[in-house]
């Protein structure tokens, strides 16, 4: 027993030392444990590492202002290593061994699907910060990323508009797992409703970590030369994006001829790519680093100084992106809900989450829907600039309510907008 306590103290000291929490005196007081479940190695590390940093940064910020309910937050970071079954194992460890009050985690939908049964069984609380395919509404999860109607559908509508180039033919290109497959199913139904024939849609998938995009690029070139204006909708995830965009640039596919709009590529993923040949290709998100407003200034400065303080690689060029913003919103909304509920009890916090608002770096006051566990978010479409940032070319006038059950999938009209559960 003594030994165990000793180990506990030791690990707490290690955590304190590692994350720069203020002083040893914090140890004496009771803490609230917060789980961080993001891949820090493997194919998804390119995207997820920054989210871990964002959670730690928000926790540090909250602790420096006195914590939550008078207690400090204590992060518990685990690395599920882009390995989907490992996500479930680590989630179980966070909930039953570390007894975290809340978890911020997951990027790919397959990892979220993998941990869902664990959160349902142990009645945990998960904040999922990434845009996804919808078709899900769980009592134990809050979705702070975009549903298809807050990202994918507006992007395709833009491509079909005059400013977007009036595309008539579409390549749906993705990594082979649940998110791209479902999104493309929704998009196919949407395009059909807009009068696009099946022959004008090409669907292509590659495995995770795929690095040879020559054939796909050649296919896109061929498909786009068979008449009518073509656009590519990419749901490629993880580090495959780097070879994909390199090949795209080298093959000379210009955005003015065949624009590529991506749903999982932001400022962070483009850091490893020469963006000069990619100028004009698009991404659709609910936040861009280049947005100009006071909240965003604060947010980007905060992250920059965090990156320098933590000595992150290339800290001088640290960037923020949409899932990081969604993570930040999530941490703060959870804090507000805990303060409203005056407890970290999962059921009480879930009830208190409804209708929470937060002044987000996107420049809007974002609201958690009273019923459906999703945020009301603004939609931005940006074109890649030569410096790897995005130039916003289209945006919604205000936040849009999420529709997790896409109306373009048959049978969804009967589904309820509230999660089943307690």
């Amino acid at each position: 027993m003594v030994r165990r306590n000793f180990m506990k103290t030791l690990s707490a000291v290690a955590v304190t030392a590692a994350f720069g929490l203020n002083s040893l005196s914090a140890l004496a007081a009771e803490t609230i444990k917060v789980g961080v479940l993001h891949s820090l190695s493997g194919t998804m590390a390119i995207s997820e590492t920054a989210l871990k940093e964002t959670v730690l940064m928000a926790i540090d910020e909250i602790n420096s202002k006195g914590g939550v309910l008078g207690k400090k937050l204590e992060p518990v970071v685990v690395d599920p290593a882009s390995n989907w079954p490992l996500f479930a194992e680590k989630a179980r460890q966070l909930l039953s061994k570390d007894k975290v009050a809340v978890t911020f985690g997951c990027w790919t939908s397959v990892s979220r699907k993998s941990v869902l049964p664990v959160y349902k069984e142990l009645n945990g609380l998960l904040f999922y910060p990434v845009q996804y395919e919808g078709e899900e509404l769980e009592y134990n999860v809050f979705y702070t990323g975009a549903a298809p109607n807050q990202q994918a559908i507006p992007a395709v509508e833009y491509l079909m508009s005059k400013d977007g180039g009036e595309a008539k033919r579409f390549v749906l290109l993705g990594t082979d797992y649940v998110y791209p497959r479902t999104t493309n199913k929704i998009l196919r139904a949407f395009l059909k409703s807009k009068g696009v024939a099946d022959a004008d849609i090409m669907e292509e998938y590659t495995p995770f970590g795929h690095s040879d995009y020559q054939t796909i690029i050649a296919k896109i070139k061929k498909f786009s030369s068979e008449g009518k204006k073509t656009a590519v909708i990419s749901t490629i995830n993880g580090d495959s994006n780097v070879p994909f965009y390199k090949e795209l640039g080298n093959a000379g596919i210009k955005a003015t001829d065949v624009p590529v709009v991506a749903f999982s590529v932001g400022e962070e993923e483009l850091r490893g790519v020469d963006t000069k040949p990619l100028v004009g290709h698009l991404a659709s998100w609910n936040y861009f680093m280049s947005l100009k407003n006071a909240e965003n200034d604060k947010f980007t400065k905060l992250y920059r100084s965090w990156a320098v303080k933590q000595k992150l690689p290339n800290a001088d060029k640290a960037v923020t992106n949409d899932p990081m913003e969604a993570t930040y919103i999530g941490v703060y909304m959870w804090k507000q809900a805990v303060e409203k509920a005056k407890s970290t009890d999962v059921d009480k916090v879930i009830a208190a989450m409804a209708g929470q608002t937060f002044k987000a770096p996107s420049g809007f006051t974002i609201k958690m829907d009273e019923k459906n566990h999703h945020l009301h978010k603004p939609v931005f479409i940006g074109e890649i600039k030569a410096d790897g940032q995005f130039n916003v070319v289209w945006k919604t006038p205000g936040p849009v309510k999420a529709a997790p059950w896409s109306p373009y999938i048959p049978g969804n009209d009967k589904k309820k907008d509230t999660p089943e559960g307690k």
Partner: protein
Amino acid sequence: MGKSRFLLCGWLLSVSLAQAAIDPALLKPLASEDSDTKIAAITALAQAAPAEALPVLKALADDSLAVAGERVVIVAGERVLDAANNTEISPAPAAREVIGINNRVRRELSAALAALRLFSTERAVRWQAAQEVTLSADAKMLPLLDRALAAEKDPEIRTRLQLAHAQASLGSTDAEVRLAAVKTLGESSDPKVRQLLLPLNEKRGDSWVEPDSAVRAAAGTSLRSIEQRLAWADSLGRAFTGLSLGSILLLAALGLAITYGVMGVINMAHGELLMVGAYSAWAMQSVFRAYLPGALDWYLLAAIPVGFLAAALVGVLMERLIIRHLYGRPLETLLATWGISLFLMQVARTVFGAQNVEVANPAWMAGGIELLPNLMLPWNRIIIVAFSIAVLVAMWAILNLSRLGMFVRAVTQNRPMAGCVGVPTGRIDTLAFGLGAGIAGLGGVALSQIANVGPDMGQGYIVDSFMVVVLGGVGQLAGAVWAALGLGVFTKFLEGWTGAVVAKIVVLVFIIIFIQKRPQGLFALKGRFVES
């Protein structure tokens, strides 16, 4: 779109005296939020002051046109120029906002710029402008193209312009003009021309899109000849991608062809030797960035020897410390090298971080050569193909022409006999293993240019490398070459047909069946060998 060009033609037909400055009222609408206003402003500007408009429009295209208060300015590094009269403003205004453009404006802008450049005095500029004009030629550009054709002397540019002219004449009301245009376009091998000709043979309702039957027939003939050329270029492109994948597989597998193929060591840490090479490329890039920023583009050349030596050093250490105690015990070797592989990955994770590191392509490896309008060969691929040939030749020379190579062959063929005649077999084993590891390092340097560099990168290549060596026949360099090329081309043709996911499965199934039917691989060693 059309309007802008129409107006441009207007000014080109009546080029007036050059103006000294641009009216600021013309510049202001460039900063508008609305695309239509912006496009109208570009047109008006090009029409009003063609000579002065060029730098302004160029700045707009390069994201360096900005608004500072009431003025529109060009940002050139540290300096800020007034767009209206091209004079420097000092002190430079601090509050300025860059004017952003979207793809639609960018398209209009490049058309306007191309039209302005068609009359440049430099041939290269005109050549590029002619190409850009071809992309978007339509009826309203005809007067401009006529003028350009009249002034143009260079035969190559003339051919380009004639194509653009034919393209623009497709919309003519005169059937004769259309017929001539369709015939000229048959010479093109641009997929975009095909796009233009395709609708001519379509029916809209009851009537043909193209009323004249002679033009329709000519369009059909032109289309067929274009399609033939396109199909040819297509297969050529596919063969090249296959060759490129083959060269990558070969680079990944060549080192293994020595350590496993010739020496018989099942080296599961081979992928990590590739990783060592790739990280050396990254390290050299960092060193050049810090100490030789001027020569940054050449870091890759320095990375070649460094990658070789680093991987060879790791290989020699592996051999001396672990593998030499396990010769003749393949199962233990397999387990031990697998352990080394995990160990090396963890070392990389600890030293360089778990995330991928960024290895940039040097400028001379970016872009590609456009052989045909639908066939672009990227430089990085071409260079890697050439590099793999060079490595192959060097390795062949070492094994067959050098003293070390002779010893290696002697030891692998008959170890006791080689020992009897005075070959230091132990040292030769170490050197041969180091050579194989070094070549894996070279493969890693090449891979860093096309794949992601991270601690787990080797895992993606270990299966492919063993596949190549086993398929080619153990102990055979020629076998490895044929197997790598064969697998590359086979995979690429399959991918074009079934998609990447299915292709990967089919290749694996094919190899399993092949090895069952022919366990010795493509090329079996002939002659007498003494098993140690």
